């Protein structure tokens, strides 16, 4: 606001630079200075001081008592037996925490009370200094720096300077290369799952294969490829626990059954279902949460993480939420024994999008 800049330039010195902040009007009220110290009751009344002293000491004593009680609680209460005791807290946890907490609080409150009631509360004044060093110091530092640079001869010997810069630029490369073995390269592993032609679709807990007639209209079954439950010739599982976790991240599916007339398959997917039974990837195309909140009336599948909603009667199309792509569908058939099988792997990568996905 220009009307505040009323003070003229420095009189008699045309060269003086006016700091715009120095030209504001004078302070409207003079600083009255630090108010006089008001004594507290404990400053003037020895009885009050004595009382405060006893308070503080009692708190410290209380802390000692609670510390002992903590040790008692530690040995008295069993753990692990009944975690539901005392509102799910467990007796041990509750008493250990309370005694420890109260013992600490008593020390803390005692110390603060001591400071507030008995330590001197006369305010003292300390002057500030500019954060910057003095101009002399600065000049000295700059001179020293210059001296050092001159002594090193870095300015006169550009060959040394340039090769040094080159070496410094290159030396992190080995450090970065060292990290190469943090993990394998992705390759196309993300685009493939363990599903293959003829692999049975089995219940995810029991591993039992599924017959179409066992699936009710409106039902959703969490399913997995049968290979997770199979063993090789030596009776060893084909996939270890770890490998199963990794493969499950891509291969987990859901099997749902709807009225066949409700389903509107896309071109080429007309025979991907069996009597209204369809199989979809369970992995959300947004960021990969497993999806299984199923609304049987609307055929909608909702992801519990970010609420992307897919219409399973309409090829898994996204109808709501942050997901961008339909949830991939696994083509189903029935094998000679009457169990549901996959006719091929997914025809697109499952799970969250990634750059090379295409």
């Amino acid at each position, binding site marked *: 606001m220009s009307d505040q800049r009323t003070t003229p330039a420095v009189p008699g010195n045309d060269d003086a630079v006016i700091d715009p902040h120095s030209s504001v009007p004078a302070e409207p009220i003079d600083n009255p200075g630090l108010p006089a110290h008001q004594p507290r009751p404990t400053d003037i009344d020895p009885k009050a001081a004595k009382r405060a002293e006893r308070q503080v000491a009692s708190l410290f004593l209380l802390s000692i008592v609670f510390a002992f009680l903590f040790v008692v609680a530690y040995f008295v209460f069993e753990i692990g037996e009944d975690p539901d005791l005392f509102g799910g807290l467990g007796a041990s946890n509750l008493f250990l925490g309370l005694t420890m907490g*109260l013992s600490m609080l008593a020390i803390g409150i005692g110390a603060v009370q001591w400071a507030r009631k008995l330590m001197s509360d006369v305010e003292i004044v300390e002057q500030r200094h500019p954060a910057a060093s003095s101009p002399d110091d600065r000049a000295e530092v700059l001179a020293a720096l210059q001296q050092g640079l001159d002594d090193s001869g870095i300015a006169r010997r550009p060959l040394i300077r340039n090769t040094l810069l080159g070496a410094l630029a290159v030396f992190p490369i080995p450090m970065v290369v060292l990290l190469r073995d943090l993990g394998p390269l992705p390759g196309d592993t993300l685009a493939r799952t363990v599903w293959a032609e003829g692999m049975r679709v089995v219940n995810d807990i029991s591993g039992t294969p599924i017959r179409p007639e066992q699936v009710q209209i409106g039902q959703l079954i969490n399913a997995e490829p049968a290979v997770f439950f199979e063993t090789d010739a030596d009776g060893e599982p084909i996939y270890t626990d770890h490998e199963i976790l990794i493969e499950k991240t891509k291969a987990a599916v859901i099997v749902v059954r709807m009225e066949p007339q409700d389903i509107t398959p896309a071109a080429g997917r007309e025979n991907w279902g069996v009597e209204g039974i369809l199989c979809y990837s369970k992995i959300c195309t947004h960021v990969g949460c497993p999806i299984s909140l199923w609304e049987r009336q609307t055929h909608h599948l909702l992801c519990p993480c970010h609420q992307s909603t897919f219409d399973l009667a309409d090829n898994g199309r996204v109808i709501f939420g942050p997901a961008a792509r339909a949830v991939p569908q696994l083509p189903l058939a029935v094998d000679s024994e009457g169990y549901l099988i996959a006719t091929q792997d997914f025809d697109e990568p499952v799970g969250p999008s990634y750059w090379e996905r295409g």
Partner: protein
Amino acid sequence: MSTTGGTPAASTNGTTPASTGKPSRLAGPANWADERLGIGKSTKKQLRKVFPDHWSFMLGEIALWSFVVLLITGVFLSLWFKPSMAEVTYLGSYDQLRGLHMSEAYASTLDISFDVRGGLLMRQMHHWAAHLFIGAMFIHMMRVFLTGAFRKPRELNWIIGGMLLLLGILEGFAGYSLPDDLLSGTGLRIADGLVKATPVLGTYMSFFLFGGEFPGDVIISRLYIAHVLLIPGLILALIAAHMMLLVYHKHTQWPGAGRTNENVVGFPMMPVYAAKAGGFFFIVFGFTAILGATLQINGVWGYGPYNPAEVTAGSQPDWYMGFAEGLMRIFPGWESVIFGYTVSWNVMIPGQIIPLTMFAIFLAYPFIEQWITGDKREHHLLQRPRNAPSRTAFLAAMVTLYGLLWAAGGNDILAVVFQLNLNWITYFMRVAVFVLPILVFILTRRWCISLQRHDSEVLLHGYETGIIMRAPEGAYSERHLPIDPERAYTLTARERDEVYELESGTNEHGVAAPNARMQRFRARLSAYWYGYNVQKPTREELLEAHEHAAHELEAHDDQHSADGHQFDGRHDVEGEELTHRH
């Protein structure tokens, strides 16, 4: 450091003079240490260093002490926790999970909870202290922002504080992931999806992070070393820098009688703050212990081991990740395929770009404000939020945005609790995050400016006594009396805002200045940011108003126009009573 003792008054605040007569019992050990470490010189000034007192200066202290609680409880947990994803069969005390296959990390977390005495308490204290740490940092940062404590020379400390907040959140997320339960595994799965959405490098980053395909078998041990060594090390180093700068700059203070930009008024480190801050550590520790005793947190035994094919409805991250979660939830499902490559806008923008941009703007704010004002002076006096209306309104808008995103991160919970339609909550949020912050900005700014007007009013015309006076001609008015001089001074102890004005867009030859457009933008911004503020009255205005008021009071005095006038504070009212005239 170039601190000196200050004014003579600073040498002591004790009631009895220090004496050099009898050598104290401290002298022996002090000499021993000094002869080896030479600490006399460096501690001389620090022991009696003055800190100003205000409740809001305690917020950062909560963060500091809860970090210490985290270190202590964390060391305890590390004595039992096994950061391994090796599959084991659980054989511990918790019935419902016995016999299940799970990672060693999850099994050892269950052991800490059920088979180590005090283990559950330490786990719960650790988790509560983490909430407290991050929450206190947030609130401390808001305090610093609202009072302008980030201004020169403290801009770098503001940035250090911002880095601490970011590291604290990362540290929290890493710790949250360690137990390898179903909920934390789901969090990692989302993080994997986020990483994979990075253009070009996404899958490589994910494979290098997880040692192959998600979930792999190394992520827990990698997060563990980040959680117990790397990030805490960085946090400790930054806390040290934060505190050293605090000591060097000396703490900011509220303006007031005797408190200026050139001094700091308060109590000395030794003994007052040694007792208060030291005691406060025990209070924070005790408080977390009581939280850990009475409020269950992260009962991982209820979630079960991680299984990438399972999730529970109502999955929620810890609260400090809530705003990012909300962004992910309300963002529309945009994705494009460009030259055969997939760009996941729906993950990249809300999950990577917006949080980092918001963070960068906050870190840069001191420099942005400095550029608008052109103010390069040191500021050690705090501003009341109302005296920086645009800044306060900006924070209020940002808090609104944060709160909306945070609520959006629990849109499923809101839908269930309030029986609302989930989709409509999401649609509402998509609009609200743009509209409400702007509304809040405007309202807060007007609110601050009217508070400034009120301050001016009080300064010029005094406070409202509540005494209604009737003039001889029958007019009613309320009697105003001047406020006490110390309060009046405090109200005026603030700087006048100056709107940056363009000197001239062109030089004398009519050639446009090199960065004229930038300067014009700066001037417009400055006018918008400061132009509406109410400036404190000048000395002349004050004198004039007070003369006027005195004159008015005189006119009314001793006319006994209404009973009760004698309670106007200007008379001795001993023995007087309010009576009704009949």
